[in-house]
């Protein structure tokens, strides 16, 4: 148990370090801006969002054609399946025939839904 906590403690410290590395570079850049090594001049045209050099048309965050949400829905379904697959795979070598057949049936039910989604055109671009 001690082992467990010491390892996750190290990961927790590493998280802090991993956040510190990019933060320190951002702070360094900010400091260089303060001592005028790095320029910081405001210009209305320069701060315009880049759209190939012309002025931005329309309001910010305008509507757009979003074609990916069916993929996102399917992803959620199949990602949950991963949660079931990983423990099954880990214990596979201790399972008998029942474990194998059970997972096959589970995947077949899933495949049914997948084939249905494909036939309905959820994987098609339009």
């Amino acid at each position, binding site marked *: 148990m001690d082992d467990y906590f010491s390892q996750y403690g*190290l990961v927790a*410290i590493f998280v802090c*370090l991993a956040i510190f590395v990019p933060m320190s570079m951002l702070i360094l*850049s900010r400091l260089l801006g303060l001592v005028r090594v790095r320029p910081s001049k405001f210009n209305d045209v320069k*701060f315009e969002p880049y759209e190939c050099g012309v002025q931005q048309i329309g309001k910010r965050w305008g509507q757009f054609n979003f074609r990916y949400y069916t993929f996102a829905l*399917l992803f959620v379904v199949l990602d949950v399946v991963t949660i079931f697959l990983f423990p099954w795979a880990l214990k596979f070598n201790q399972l008998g025939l029942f474990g194998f057949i059970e997972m096959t049936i589970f995947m077949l039910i899933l495949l049914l839904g997948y084939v249905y989604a494909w036939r309905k055109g959820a994987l098609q*671009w339009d």
Partner: protein
Amino acid sequence: MSGSFLESNVIFQEIYCVLAGSKYAGESCSAQGLLPVGYDWIGFFIAGFAIMFILANAFMLGAAVFVYSERRLLGKFQLRTGPNRVGPFGLLQPIADILKLLMKEDIVPNGADKPVHTLAPIVMLAPAILVTAVIPFGSGYFLTDLNVGLLYIVAVSGMITIAIFMAGWSCNNRYALFGSMRGVAQLISYELPMVFSMVGILILTGSLSLIDVVNAQDIPFILVQPMAFVIFLIGTSAELNRTPFDIVEAESEIIAGYHTEYSGIKFALFQAAEMGSILVSGAVVATLFLKGWEGPFLPGPIWFLIKVYGFVFLMIWVRATLPRLRVDQVMGFAWKFLLPLSLVNIFVTGASVFILGDMENGVRVLDSVDLLLVGAINLLSLIACLVLAGFFMKTKASGGRSREILVSEFDPAGREVLT
């Protein structure tokens, strides 16, 4: 603070031994200990921090080396010289780049969501560094040996999706938004086959710890799981937004994708995260499929580096060779080909292990011949799947239809312009 972790982790144990002494560091340690009794946790902290410091610096240095080697090698592939002015053979080019980017103005566009805009590079770089925590670089050279190592890698590298979306959304720029939408869609699509292809390895090893995965490889898993290797390689190069799948930042379509509005040090952080992740993915591939640090004659870490750079070279080679795919092709490839293929891989591996393995004391074991047979079955089913898919696509070829639809992503009138 003793146990299997401390005994297996060589560097950690050395430092901890010198600092805390034999009282805490176990029998193999003979040092007195620099710290007073009862302060062994400081030694633990410093020993851990030393390895973390090495890892974080190696990550950034590796990214710099990758930038140089990619530009140089791409130059060679395209029959030009590549960078050769800064330092000998242009070796100092990445340092010059980072200095230049430090001196550049940091522009946040009008109407942007400033906190998210600043946070995005941090969210991008931190997980990329964090993945190195569980990777074993040699026998006994690692930071931690989590018992959920593989799951940790999947979970942490999944954070990059959020960073890409944050970057694209915060900029108030249409192209950045398009890029991030594509990025999120592509990353989640290719994550599935990638994760499913790991399941075959889990069946063979029975452990999520990366050290156990390496130790279980009597035969490198590239020979036992060729189908999983192919899927994993394609999935990785899509997760990294590398060239056949770099629709996320396709410069001829959407300027630079999600980091269009980033300049100066924030841009450098995005680049460092991308370049470093390639090395980290190389390390994951080497650990999972190429037997990690093990090899004849040379010491472990050097073998590991050779394998990682073999992967990196392959990535650069692919970039120099293949053109970019279209959005619908990329998504279709993930969902209609790779995902079924990875499911077939799970089934074939499971079935062949089930049939070939012999039960001993309630656990199924396979010897080397069995493993090679599993590999042969795997390879044959990969070829069968490829032939089947080729036959299926030939009969259902849709001609140039998709291209018209793609143009309509930007402009509904594009359909008429094109035809």
